[in-house]
């Protein structure tokens, strides 16, 4: 699987994403600087986490206007796969590639902790390695992960099975206590209508080897390889 990781000024989690992709695919991803106007032909483009442009004005707002982002949109429009993790998810909503918006956490505080996610839909190129309804553990680390979409959009997302990850408790219940940021419907990750674009606030790339505390994040990347074959 050929991949590319986009780096904006102050994308901090680019190295983490590069390491994860290389580990799983056996190939070094292309690393694309935001000023580049060309992305080589790849199977997957990853928008990593971090604080692109300092999160100034709105998270992901300025990155959405970078020269390279046009190319990401073109790739997505052609049906190419795109993942956006944390700040990457924010960039995807700012470009309109995914619906809704990520707003300030309800607690108003930055939150870094492990959360439980339910894989609501494993019939996607990003979750086929998980069991349906599987509960996995991944870390979140964000100040603005509060997913908002209006009622109609929310209904569509749910009805069409496009909520891929949901914050749940140990019993798989989407409770308020299990929700780290106030997201509507405890939404942690969603997918586009064509199922080629995924946005997730939790960081699967941070949980791919035992010393990191677990390997539940591996399935996310393995799914993509499965989907390609």
């Amino acid at each position, binding site marked *: 699987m050929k991949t590319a990781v986009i780096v904006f*000024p*102050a994308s*901090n*989690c680019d*190295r*983490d994403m590069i*390491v*994860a992709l290389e580990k799983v695919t056996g190939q070094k991803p292309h690393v694309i*600087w935001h*000023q580049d106007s060309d992305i080589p032909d790849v199977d997957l483009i990853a928008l990593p*986490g*971090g*604080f692109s*442009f*300092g*999160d*100034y004005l709105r998270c992901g707002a300025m990155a959405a206007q970078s020269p390279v982002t046009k190319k990401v949109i073109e790739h997505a429009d052609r049906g190419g796969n795109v993942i956006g993790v944390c700040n990457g998810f924010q960039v995807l909503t700012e470009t309109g590639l995914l619906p809704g918006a990520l707003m300030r956490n309800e607690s108003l*505080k*930055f*939150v*870094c*902790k492990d959360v439980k996610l339910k894989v609501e839909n494993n019939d996607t190129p990003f979750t086929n390695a998980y069991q349906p309804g599987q509960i996995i553990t991944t*870390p979140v*680390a964000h*100040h603005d992960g509060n997913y908002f979409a209006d009622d109609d959009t929310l209904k569509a997302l749910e009805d069409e099975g496009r909520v891929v990850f949901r914050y749940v408790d140990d019993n798989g219940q989407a409770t308020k206590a299990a929700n780290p940021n106030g997201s509507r419907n405890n939404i942690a990750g969603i997918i586009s209508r064509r199922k080629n674009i995924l946005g997730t606030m939790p*960081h699967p*790339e*941070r949980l791919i080897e035992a*010393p*990191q*505390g677990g390997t539940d994040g591996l399935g996310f990347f393995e799914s993509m390889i499965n989907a390609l074959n």
Partner: protein
Amino acid sequence: MSQTPAWNNNVEITDALVKEHGLSDDEYALCLKILGRTPTLTELGIFSVMWSEHCSYKSSKKHLKTLPTKAPWVIHGPGENAGVIDIGDNQAIIFKMESHNHPSYIEPYQGAATGVGGILRDVFTMGARPIANMNALRFGSPDHPKTKHLLGGVVEGIGGYGNCVGVPTVGGETNFHPSYDGNILVNAMNVGLAQQDKIFLSAAAGIGNPVIYVGSKTGRDGIHGATMASAEFTEDSEEKRPTVQVGDPFTEKLLIEACLELMATDMIVAIQDMGAAGLTSSSVEMASGGGVGFAFNLDMVPQREEGMTPYEMMLSESQERMLIVLKPGREAEAKAIFDKWDLDFAVIGKITDTGNLTLTFKGDVVADIPTKPLADNSPEYDRPWVKQEPKAILGADSFPAPADMADTLLKMVGSPDLCSREWIWQQYDHQVMADTIQKPGGDAAVVRVHGTDKAVAISTDCTPRYCYADPVEGGKQAVAETWRNITAVGANPLAITDCLNFGNPERPEIMGQFVGCIEGMKEACEILDYPVVSGNVSLYNETNGTGIHPTPAIGGVGLLSDSSKMVTIAPKTAGEVLLLVGE
């Protein structure tokens, strides 16, 4: 709009002006001797910051010199921007701790944030990629009216800066005690990873080499000079000089990447961050360190405000700036890197053989100071001190045993000093860079050395009430505790940094605490083969004659050669045996 009088560099230097600049009669006399004439206003400002307590360590130097600083694995001890230790395979760990106490009391968010920014720069200026932040915090009593606001602001500021820069904040310590009611302590520590053959020092060299300013533009942040230092005389002249520095972690992150990119080439001769007293301290240290002079054209300094004077430019504490001496002819190549990262890059001068810091502004020479005497002859006091006798021991027998042990245990575990600090460290991204293998909550933080089997263990510790009760024992205990914490996770303790926070050194009791703590630290460091490689001193942490408890915060660093051997505090399975080791 009122008249703007011309700024006067040659204003009469009165006794009052000298006092306003914090210089004693002796210090001013020495200044006259060094210059051979009366100083200009700009020169007065430069002397005043270089010889301030913060920059010159005048009250503490004499005693700091007694600390052990050597070991076979120490590559650079105190004297450089940060300490450097050998961890094998041509790799080095570079680390230091610094205080930002007074600014954090005034503006907790920005005070703490800029503290983090400052210590990051001290580490990456030497060529290290920062890999971990730690912080040691001391607040007043939990029910003191300001504590909640200060705690919230400081934690938010540390998180806000550290998270944005993308360096994990992996541990620290937090205490609450009434002695900090009027003076909180915010000590920020940073640990970075470098290649041993790519370590950068600050001593300037090469007559004619260009001197480059990179990073953010210079504003009027943090200038505490005389009113005549500013060109603007309006009703709101106070407004013109914000005493609080605001940090921009986004720019800092760009600065880190740009500098590391430049460091990967062979273009750098010397590099220094602009910390306290910004352009002044960095240029004087670089020049005097190399035994050379600097000639600057201040018109070239990137400025954020209109009408800045030389005094303001030299004393400004605007954040996120570095000073670089480059090999000749490489300016364009270096500029390309900083253009990519959207950072200001200005050739502001060059190295001369005069040994002087010579500043010109709009065609006039506004300052011309021999740098070696300025740096080397900074005052060194031998302040009177009174040995602090240990307080009477509180034997456990002098207290009745609690009636209800379980209830007492709950009370203790729920007390401010022992309760969980999760509320704090969950506001810090402690996993970014994906190498944190022991998060906050354990005895020490452990971060992998990327791409290797090694890991670094880090702990900050101090028990101020011990230091108050018996400074020598307290100093020993602080060092020993970091040693134990690092050992407990399976690492081999290598060296320490420190932040010595004390009250007013003009009081002999406080100096006595200082001397005592250092004596204790020295003893522990010698016995444990665990030298001091960097550090910081913060004095005058006192309000209305009441000082803080003596707080020599220690930051220890150790190495695990095999990260898979790391140990945690959580029991793994039922039936395990508990062993108590030691008396």
